[in-house]
């Protein structure tokens, strides 16, 4: 057997051992990641997964700062989406966040920490239960998850914990856009002596209706910044949430 057929056989065997029930439903990972087989376990047993170019993940090809890698996910072309899961194959904590679009479209901008070069993926679940997977490779020097937050070294961060600053855009090319920044160290728990301390839940509401709910994990960058589209809703946007230590917050972003 020559080495190439040997490798192909191993690869094939690896594919077949993963969820035989799904054989035939799965395409080849367009990002060619060796971790994709394991990433399948993030999804429910019987889930149908499809690589879908309509789920766009915008991120820099080369990210100089692994602590603040900008990611923009756009799954709005799919129509109604109930849930979007974002993950990074080669992070020690692979799941980055989930967002649940309600009145707002399935579109979200944020920043993440990367431990090494990795695919960053977004999987959007449509009403039929199918997960549509898009992604992009990001090359970085790494170390983002095991470096202490800047706050861990600053004396006064507690005074500003969970403070929200934000703004809505009413006119111009970005009309209907909401951006917000929340003060939080987002410590991963992977730095010696610094326990995991991160935002867990954030919800945005307008006019009593939920725009979007976010479920955040450790790899979201320190002092998270989110960009979303408000959709048809008008008036002020209410933000509320809490971190994994139970610190709750509430804020209002005026139009």
């Amino acid at each position: 057997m020559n080495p190439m057929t040997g490798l192909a056989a191993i690869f094939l065997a690896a594919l077949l051992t993963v969820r035989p029930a799904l054989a035939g439903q799965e395409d080849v990972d367009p990002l060619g990641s060796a971790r994709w087989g394991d990433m399948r376990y993030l999804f429910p047993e019987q889930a149908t997964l499809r690589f879908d170019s309509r789920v766009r993940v915008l991120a820099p090809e080369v990210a100089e700062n692994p602590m603040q890698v900008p990611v923009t996910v756009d799954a709005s072309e799919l129509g109604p989406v109930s849930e979007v899961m974002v993950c990074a194959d080669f992070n020690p904590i692979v799941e980055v966040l989930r967002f649940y679009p309600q009145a707002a479209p399935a579109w979200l901008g944020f920043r993440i920490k990367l431990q090494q070069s990795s695919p960053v993926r977004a999987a959007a679940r449509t009403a039929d239960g199918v997960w549509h997977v898009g992604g992009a490779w990001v090359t970085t020097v790494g170390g983002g998850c095991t470096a202490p937050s800047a706050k861990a070294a600053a004396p006064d961060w507690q005074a500003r914990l969970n403070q929200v600053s934000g703004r809505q855009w009413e006119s111009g090319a970005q009309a209907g856009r909401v951006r917000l920044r929340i003060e939080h160290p987002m410590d991963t728990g992977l730095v010696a002596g610094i326990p995991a301390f991160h935002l867990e839940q954030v919800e945005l509401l307008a006019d009593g209706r939920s725009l979007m709910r976010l479920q955040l994990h450790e790899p979201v960058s320190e002092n998270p910044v989110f960009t979303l589209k408000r959709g048809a809703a008008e008036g002020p946007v209410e933000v509320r949430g809490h971190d994994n230590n139970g610190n709750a917050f509430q804020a209002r972003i005026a139009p």
Partner: protein
Amino acid sequence: MKRWLPLAFLGVALAAAGADFDYRLSAERVADDVHVFVGKTEDFTPANGGNIVNTGFIVAPGGIVVIDSGPSRRYGEQMRRAIAAVDGRPLALVINTHHHPDHFLGNQAYADVPLAALPGTIEGIASDGNAFAENLYRLTGDWMAGTEVVVPKQALAGDRQEIAGRRLRLLALDGHTGADLAIYDEASGVLFTGDLGFFGRAPTTPHADVNRWLAALDTLEAITREPGFRAVVPGHGPVARDAAPLRQTRAWLNWLQMALRRSAESGLDMNETMAQPLPAEFAGLPVAASEYRRSVGHLFPAVEREALGAPR
């Protein structure tokens, strides 16, 4: 087959290195007794070995004053030989203009000469030097073999000094980093700007404070209006006989600051800001697109924070 494999690997390694690890440094005479080694206006690559920087030397009566030592041990050693070929005098002092790796990682070649820098630069090299060196190993490969950080010991202050019998004006500035030394050689009228001046190559901003940098450019540009002024040696790019490198650096920084503010004010996120096209004025500038994207990463979070307003 097996015994040929090592040879095959060696062949690949040599081809990848571009052969002989010779930077082919040749001193360019800027004025009497003032010489510069002009680097390429590129990013760090295994092909250029990190020779993307300008270093120089001044032949003073009491010895030679070296300004910056380059990106690697090999560079420093080859530079020292190239200096000796121009003038056989002993070396009096080696100055590192700031703490970026392409300006001090040749220090090993000058370990027997007093090494000097601003206090902030000495601190920066001591704390970040190894991380910078590791990154250059990643970016340029075997050119870096044997390179280790040597921290300058002698702290410089910004003033007029006679060094090795030559009057040098040391300008302790900041903005490109937290400590940037510019050197004006009053006898020749040559101004070494360090990385406060970039010419024909987009400026880099990993440790920049743009407003401080613009103020430093004012100070430097005033020197170019003095009667004895002859030339500007920027940190990167060709030598100029006028203030063009300072004006180009200023134009880039002004545009960058304005572009980031406009972007944050109009509600764009960091990715969308990175995707913005460059204006025609800068689109043709070497490494402009990649430096712009890097700068967005360095500077946008602070600009964005201002645009989002006070916490509520």
